């Protein structure tokens, strides 16, 4: 399946259905794996749907197309929802989602380029490490006169890493308008509320002061993501940061906004309850899971 960059008007119902399916996949993957990072992943489902369902250019028959768009998931721990997006976009087999975090799987606990070089531009996990690589790819794309764009996703707690601000400086200094950063601003990190642990506000002002174009949106409003992504693509001479105000674990009420769901794994009962809250639709089939021993 080939998807062309930001082609036509976005079908918001289709993207909403996709986002809900990414949530179902994420819940089932993490329950099946027995570990993982469910909260941040669920909160990113809507933006991920806007990227893979509309904004990005890619072709499963030509995965290394030099003009494709790239994702750098700098907050690599949220990778379950990314893997689900790859599968739902036809880039990897749906059945593979059941292998996440297992020995030998391409779907490592944190994204590994070695395992899947066609889709994972750079290995991530240690926070702050993905963003500089995205700038390097963007500089190379510019050197090659490619229209490819680089989408970086950062966690909000990740912004406490000094290296993130080094990278903010670099993208602005080199006027990398082919870089678009999304900040998953759910205000929660492992030890609690971001502002209590180590404050990052006023975030928009800080990033603007670094020379960026900044857009603030409700990160669960897919229409707003579509508009912001479009605005980023038409903003020339400077990179764009989309601050997505999100709710951690959005879509599963008993997990929403609760720091313990950063890294907890839902039990069988909790998984059933979580799946009920994100609903089903007829557009997608669930991926098969073998019975656990």
């Amino acid at each position, binding site marked *: 399946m080939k998807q062309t960059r930001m082609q036509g008007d976005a079908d918001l119902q289709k993207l909403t259905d996709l986002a809900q399916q990414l949530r179902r996949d994420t819940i089932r993957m993490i329950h099946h794996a027995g570990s993982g990072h469910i909260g941040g992943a669920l909160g990113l489902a809507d933006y991920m749907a806007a990227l893979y369902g509309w904004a990005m250019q890619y072709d499963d028959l030509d995965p290394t197309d030099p003009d494709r768009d790239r994702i750098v998931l700098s907050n690599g721990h949220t990778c379950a929802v990314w893997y689900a997006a790859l599968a739902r976009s036809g880039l990897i087999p749906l059945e593979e989602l059941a292998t996440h975090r297992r020995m030998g799987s391409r779907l490592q606990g944190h994204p590994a380029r070695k395992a899947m070089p066609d889709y994972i531009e750079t290995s991530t996990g240690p926070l702050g490490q993905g963003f500089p690589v995205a700038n*390097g790819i963007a500089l*190379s794309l510019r050197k090659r006169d490619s229209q490819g764009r680089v989408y970086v996703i950062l966690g909000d707690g990740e912004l406490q890493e000094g290296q993130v601000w080094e990278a903010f400086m670099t993208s602005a200094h080199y006027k990398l308008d082919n870089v678009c950063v999304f900040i998953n601003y759910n205000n929660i990190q492992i030890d609690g509320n971001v502002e209590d642990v180590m404050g990052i506000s006023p975030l928009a002002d800080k990033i603007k002061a670094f020379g960026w174009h900044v857009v603030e949106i409700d990160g669960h409003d897919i229409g707003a993501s579509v508009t912001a992504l479009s605005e980023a693509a038409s903003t020339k001479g400077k990179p764009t940061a989309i601050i997505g105000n999100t709710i951690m674990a959005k879509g599963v009420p008993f997990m929403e906004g609760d720091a313990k769901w950063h890294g907890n794994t839902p039990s069988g009962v909790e998984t059933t309850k979580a799946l009920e809250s994100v609903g089903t639709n007829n557009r997608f089939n669930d991926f098969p899971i073998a019975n656990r021993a």
Partner: protein
Amino acid sequence: MYSGNKAMRDAFGDALADIGAQDDRIVVLTADLTDAIKVGKFKERFPERFYQMGIKESDMIGTAAGMAIDGQIPFTSTFAVFTTSLANQAIRVNVAYNNANVKIATSHGGVCVGADGATHQAFEDVALMRLIPNMTILVPCDANEAYKATIAAAKMDGPVYLRFGRIPSPVVTCADDPFEIGKARILRDGKDVAIVAMGAMVPVALEAASDLATDGIQAKVIDMHTIKPLDENTIIESAKECGCVVTAEEHTVLGGLGGAVAEVLAKNLPTPLRMVGVLDTFGESGEPQEILEKYHLTSSDIVEQVRLVLTQK
């Protein structure tokens, strides 16, 4: 090529400009040290392929990895100590784990920064790089070898760490000598003791071998320009032939060349071994020669260790 005394970093700058003219995938990044690591020549000739990254080494390494992932051949350039300590995580994850085709070039390896003192003296950089999978480590012994190592690094696919000295040092190899990554060179033959040296200690080892010869001791001198992958075969064969080994490096003996040779010998052919190098300590300010003397990194220190190891045969 070069003769007399010449700084390796100058040869690096020359090689970079030459290989840059042949391959437009070569890009150069620096962290505010254009002149110190001699990448100015490349900058002048290929300004569109030169990237000033400011004083942020981790970001420079990560950016270089991204450029490599998209098909460029980036050389990063700054001091050895900042690269390997400050940007270690970026080297580990962005470069090595991704197996990205980045050439991490460094100057001011060892004590040669002299008066700048301990914070700027890289004693542990090679050991830090040895611990990282996928990394090739090149430590040329003079300007001619620095030139060839730079070209060889550009032509191989995969991460490479390159270590150059700051101050002019004796040129002991010839322009037409072969240079092959992973293949040590025997610069002087002998059967009484094998001196395995790296970098600027190679000329010092040759000097020690001359001194020893006046006493009838024939020392083999091995230029171990590739620390990883290590030429184990040459080490084992030399140990077999000579029966004892001395290592010499401008670097800590812990995990550097001395450590690497000890691992090979212990596993394959336990052989009396003594190490000349920095002994688990920080440096200090002083003229390079004063520091070399205080930290026992001179030819007479090598001679002393040879005499001691000969008694252990």
